[in-house]
């Protein structure tokens, strides 16, 4: 009897030229200069960092640029015990959701400088930047955040973002 064909492999490769759009382009240009630029919604007044095209709650175009600080609060986190393909970081590591001071939205960054079991919601952190000569149009200019020697932020102050 002929063996059944149970699997075929058909490789797919697609190349794209990404158009970040007006708002994201302004954000990316800011990062290139080491500036963290957020955008305020005229309707709900929340500051988005990174800026999206429009406020995703109100559907309104942003009107005001706000420079956000590189210190912030880790509102939640995950301890990662399995590496993704093509990504080699010493395990375990911590992926953090950080709301930078002056922003109302959280950004995903790595947490370093602390053992995973010591990571806490509300922990105050500061961005660690890659060398200025290497800054690019990217949030990856911040390679991780590390703990600040400050008391934790109270849960009430960030519960909306959890």
């Amino acid at each position: 009897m002929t063996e059944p064909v149970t699997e075929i492999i058909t490789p797919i490769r697609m190349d794209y030229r990404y158009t970040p759009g007006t708002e994201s382009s302004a954000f990316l240009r800011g990062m290139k200069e080491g500036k963290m630029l957020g955008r305020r919604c005229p309707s709900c007044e929340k500051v988005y960092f990174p800026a999206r095209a429009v406020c995703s709650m109100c559907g309104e175009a942003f009107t005001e640029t706000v420079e956000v600080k590189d210190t912030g609060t880790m509102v939640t986190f995950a301890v990662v015990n399995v590496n993704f393909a093509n990504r080699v970081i010493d395990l375990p590591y911590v992926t953090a959701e950080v709301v930078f001071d002056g922003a109302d939205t959280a950004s995903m960054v790595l947490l370093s400088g602390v053992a995973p079991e010591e990571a806490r919601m509300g922990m105050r952190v500061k961005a660690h930047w890659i060398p200025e000569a290497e800054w690019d149009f990217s949030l990856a200019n911040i390679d991780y955040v590390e703990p600040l020697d400050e008391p934790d932020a109270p849960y009430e102050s960030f519960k909306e973002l959890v």
Partner: protein
Amino acid sequence: MRDVAVVAYNQFATRRDETRNEIEMLLPVLKDTLGPLGLTTKDMGFTVSGSSDYLAGQAFAFVSALDAVGPWPPIAESHVEMDGAFALYEAWVRLQHGDIDTALVYAFGKSSPGDLGRVLALQLEPYLVGPLWPDAASLAALQARALIDSGKASEKDLARVVARSRRAAQDNPNAQLKGEVDEAALLDEPLFNDPLRKHDLPTISDGCAVMVLAAGDRARELTDTPVWIRGIDHRVESQHLGSRDVTTSASTRLAGQKAGADVGTIDLAELHAPFSHQELILIDALGLDETRTRINPSGGALASNPMMTAGLVRIGEAAKRLAAGEGNRAVAHATSGPALQQNLVCVLEA
């Protein structure tokens, strides 16, 4: 059946928009459509969109696009990975439930980020056809060759379709290709995908379209010129190209009959024919008489073909002309898939 009407429509199309992303492209068109009605997206009973994440190359790009709608507090929302015309069909069905009176339909597609030929190859049967990466123009050329070999059309007929499109598109601000062209001169152009010449192919465009539907009295409240959807039907043929007679469109014929396009006077028809020869196949399948029905007064997809949008645009353009008094009854058609695989026919009345 509940009477449902197109009460507002707007579109945007261009060759390529590399300044704005999809959301930024959509936002002003949404505002221009809802603003004159005195409505916001929050007033819509249902919201549904048509787009394809493969065009942007980003998973869940359609969810990002919802930012333009401002979906908070949460809204009733749906999406089809298809042209917006098929999203309109879902909205029409949803309005038949009777508990809501308005629906927002939008479509968007940017062809500029990727290689459109390869993107469209991903919709093909994935085992035997897809891995060969046939591009849409090559598949259309096979269809055109079969059509010409069958004796149903000639290259001259294709040139006539192109010249008509260019002429009609002259007063369409969203058309990229327009003007008076000489049919004989078109035939002097070199072959591109034999038997198709470059002008037999659609434009590659970025664009979006937004439409508001309303039922019964709500439609009459919102506009003095509602354009009623009197029939709508969508039919699908096999994805195996070899098992179809591509010189005709059985699905369009059936959808046309179900939608009521085969009876009564049709003043104008907007046909979603991305390739010139497909317009001839569609005219035949719908039984249209070109001496009595204006075909593609907007110029059609040959003049402007934003992916996932051009089908909804056909319905919008037909509705716009009926609302402006250019006729009483129109047929609008949308297609999807290779070589007219899927077809939707919609009959509109002023």
